[in-house]
């Protein structure tokens, strides 16, 4: 997600940028003679099931020379997340890896500047059920020996589903997309919304799909993941109502949904939308009057 460079250090308790949640600084995870501070901040408020979980990565350079960080492709592939879900069991370790084109992961932090970026933890952890999650986040060792990186551990509790709250969260994210002054801001909010794997998100993803903020592929990805009939109808609508570029992506999403869903009604709906054409001959055609 988005990274910014700030000329001043942030206070330890932050009002949050992405949601209305409050972050608190969990730990100053690494220091180099107190010159470079690497911080991880997680939400201080409770999170309910299917809400996006966002953490903030922060690096403050108090030294007199610039430092370089390699966060990996898309600025997230060099983070390794290990977690144990509510059912305990063996820890799962996840490192994101995405082929094809992506953003450069190298970040330069000038003296007395702070670099920070919000990261969507759902990319690593599905948070599919409520309960406590033990999380460890580790940034791969950096080439510069001046940045010493230690793992950060925390517990995140996911409360049971609260539809009203989830709607508010989705609405807030959709509004952020509408109001975004840049693609980066729009895509950050759209990405968070696309990870709400709940039918509640569908109308908000539809709104984002038509927001003209260039985030149509992200919204389509979210709808594909929700994967219900309502989401399919939104995608079908996009086949007719949106540009060929977007329709192509929507069609591809529908094709995958059709292959993966066990729901025969949904399969039929998608097949009917994608063709081949259904030709119904008389007299079996159902009455329309």
């Amino acid at each position: 997600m988005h990274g910014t460079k700030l000329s001043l250090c942030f206070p330890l308790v932050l009002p949050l940028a992405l949601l209305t949640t409050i972050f608190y600084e969990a730990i100053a995870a690494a220091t180099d003679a107190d010159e470079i501070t690497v911080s991880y901040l997680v939400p201080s408020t409770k999170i309910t099931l299917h809400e996006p979980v966002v953490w903030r990565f922060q690096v403050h350079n108090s030294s007199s020379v610039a430092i370089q960080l390699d966060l990996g492709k898309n600025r997230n592939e060099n983070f390794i997340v290990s977690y144990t879900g509510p059912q305990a069991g063996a820890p799962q370790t996840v490192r994101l890896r995405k082929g094809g084109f992506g953003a450069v992961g190298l970040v330069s932090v000038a003296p007395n500047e702070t670099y920070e970026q919000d990261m969507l933890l759902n990319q690593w952890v599905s948070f599919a059920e409520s309960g406590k999650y033990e999380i460890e986040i580790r940034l791969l060792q950096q080439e510069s020996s001046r940045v010493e990186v230690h793992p950060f551990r925390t517990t995140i509790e996911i409360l049971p589903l609260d539809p009203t709250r989830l709607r508010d969260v989705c609405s807030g994210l959709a509004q952020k997309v509408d109001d975004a002054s840049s693609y980066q801001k729009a895509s950050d909010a759209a990405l968070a919304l696309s990870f709400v794997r709940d039918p509640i998100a569908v109308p908000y993803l539809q709104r984002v799909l038509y927001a003209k903020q260039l985030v149509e592929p992200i919204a389509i990805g979210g709808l594909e993941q929700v994967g219900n009939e309502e989401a399919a109808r939104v995608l079908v609508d996009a086949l007719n109502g949106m540009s060929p570029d977007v329709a192509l992506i929507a069609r591809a999403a529908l094709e995958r949904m059709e292959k993966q869903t066990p729901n025969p009604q949904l399969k039929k709906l998608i097949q009917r939308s994608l063709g081949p054409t259904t030709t119904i001959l008389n007299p079996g055609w159902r009455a329309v009057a």
Partner: protein
Amino acid sequence: MRPATVSSLLALTALASVPVSVPYYASPFTKPSQAHNTQMAQQTTQGAPREIDFPYYSLRDGYSSLLQLVSDSPVSLPIEVTIRSSSGRNILKKDMNISSQEKLMIELQSLVASLNGESEDDFQEGSISVSYASDTRPIMGQITVTNPYLNLIFESRLAINDPGDSNIPAVLEGIWWGLKPGRQTKVMVANTSNSSVTADVSLTFRGQRHLGALISFAPYETKVLSIRELLAKFNADTEFVSEGGITITGHSPSPVLIASGMTADLNSGFSTTMHFPPAGTPQTSTLLAPGVPIGTPSAESPFALAGTFTPHVVVRNLSSSPQTATVSVEYPTASGTQLITLDPINLAAYATKDVALDSTVQDRLPLPLPYCSIQVKNSGSPGSAVAEISSVAHNQDLVVDSKLGDPTDRLSGSGINPWHLDDQTESVLFLANEGDAPARVAFQIQAQRTKPDMFGNTIPARATDGSLFWVKMDRVPMIGRTLVFSSHKGISSNFDCSCTLHCPQGYLALSVAPSSTTMTINGTQQFTATERWGDCSGLIYYYDQTTSSTWTSNSSACTVGNNGLGSSGLATGVAPGSATIKASYTDDVPHWSVALQDCVDNYIQRSASGTANVVAVPTNFRQTSTSDLGNGDVHFTYAWGSTSGNLADLSACTVGEIVTYPGGNPYHWQSPPFPANSTSNPTVSDVAATAGAGVDDNFLYPSSTFVRPYSAASFTATQFFRYKCTNINGGNYVNLLGPLSITRSVQQNTNGTWRFTVTKPTNGQATINALP
């Protein structure tokens, strides 16, 4: 059957020859007293909420739209005009008043601009609703959509949508015809409700109904459906399916979808309106259209010199049983009306047929004729067939649509209609008496200018605009319609609803087009200045003032040329930012001076402006490095710049790739020998363009394990790099680089071992040699 041209009515010479008895003025039109008006005003302000909806307007691609509202109310009524954008998400509202007997002519381009909606592309088309309060339904109207440059015109008719009482049909049934190569047929469907609704859309052609995809409508959304595109989805050869029916069935608790349609030929000027009858349309087996031009009209015809016409009778069988349709042509002769009946048209179940009354029919008629009436009688139950009649000039430019009606209907098209006369425009009232006895008709004709002329005539001999009331006085089968057409412009309009006088004639607006545009740095945009004048018949006249205007830009974001300083109105982007591009010119509107007894010049300064938003776009996209990272991962880095020189100006842009694989979705790699991986097909990735750089990895993931037995195999994906910006190319992608072939192969070495290679034609390659 007789036509009455407005000019003949004005001269009061033709009336005596009209076989119907014509009292010139009838008491039903007497205006109520002022005291009564006041009383009514108090009543109507407390009246029931009313709403009328129009399915479509367009300001796109050179189209303009004129909303004409007329009021039969004896008192002035406050109305609220709501313009709904095509997505339904944006609305503009305007409170107005419509006086008693007034005709409001609302030019929608100007209204949208005055409400600051012109910068929204969403308002280039959409739907309109008008709400008011009244115990009756005195307000009627029509939207006329015209493209004067292409000589196209079609009509968007109203639907009554009062709360709990509407005439919106549950099923919209329409006919299209004449869909030949080079033409397009579009159906505009609007959701009049604040709820989402889905609809089944089916096409009927070649005797079969084809049920298409379910279509979703957001609240108040307007969708434009292309018949040609719908046909393509049914694998129909669109070149050879020229006519058929469309059925739109909304799925909502009460009907909320309304529609209008048109077929147009952008080259020839051919345009015809597709109607979707409202609920409550009289169910009849006999339909009649009066005043149809056929062949080369005779010298006394109102269509004289307008061309040579071939009427088309298009009939659609809505039922599941075969039936026939019998077409009769009635024509006037010195000894009275004569009639020929054609062979019955066999209509299979759900069939649509376009029957051209060409030379084989015309040879049976005593041509030339001034006009004819066409009757269509179907053998099935009333309402089981619908029909449309349009007469097409041989040069295809002029199409005279003749609405079919039921002669036994109480109203039969009577009411208030506008008329307009000039050198190129004729207005005709066609009346057809289908009964055996003479019929009486009452007229009231008014001119827009109500002051007597110098000879004391209430209606000046040179009056050009006014209104015509007509109503039948006897219970006889009769039908009528008013036609206003301009053969030189290739356009005609039908009026058979209440329209009245007092319409403003003259200057409407000066507009600059485009009203808002987005340009790239060094990109150009031609602005044009067009003056619009309107007349009482709803026709709009356009005058290009581009070269006679002085053009200015208020910002260094772009420059604009004038004569002698670049081309007039041609703007060039210079730097990111916004500029108001203004056109100013002095209009000379001469007027008659009583004092001087001569025409004197009257100079009026006019100006209008548009907005140019100049934006930066990604440029100089290039590969900056390539490397083999091992394990079959070929890695590339790319960089790009901004046309403004500042990457921060690309905040509304992305740079990314699309990679397409040669198979299904997901694309499964051939395994063995490749790892059993699958890939979304296509894959699409975008990053923020402000980054100025990106990486591209082509690796083996999630599995890197090649599967035995090994064999020679390869597959090639195709990659494009591209950008998109919110306001460039409609937010669609623009290619930067490609196509590039990404080829993965397993091949055998001469020593019998196997190797894997991934290559791109830009010096990028990674190899695993030898495979384990």
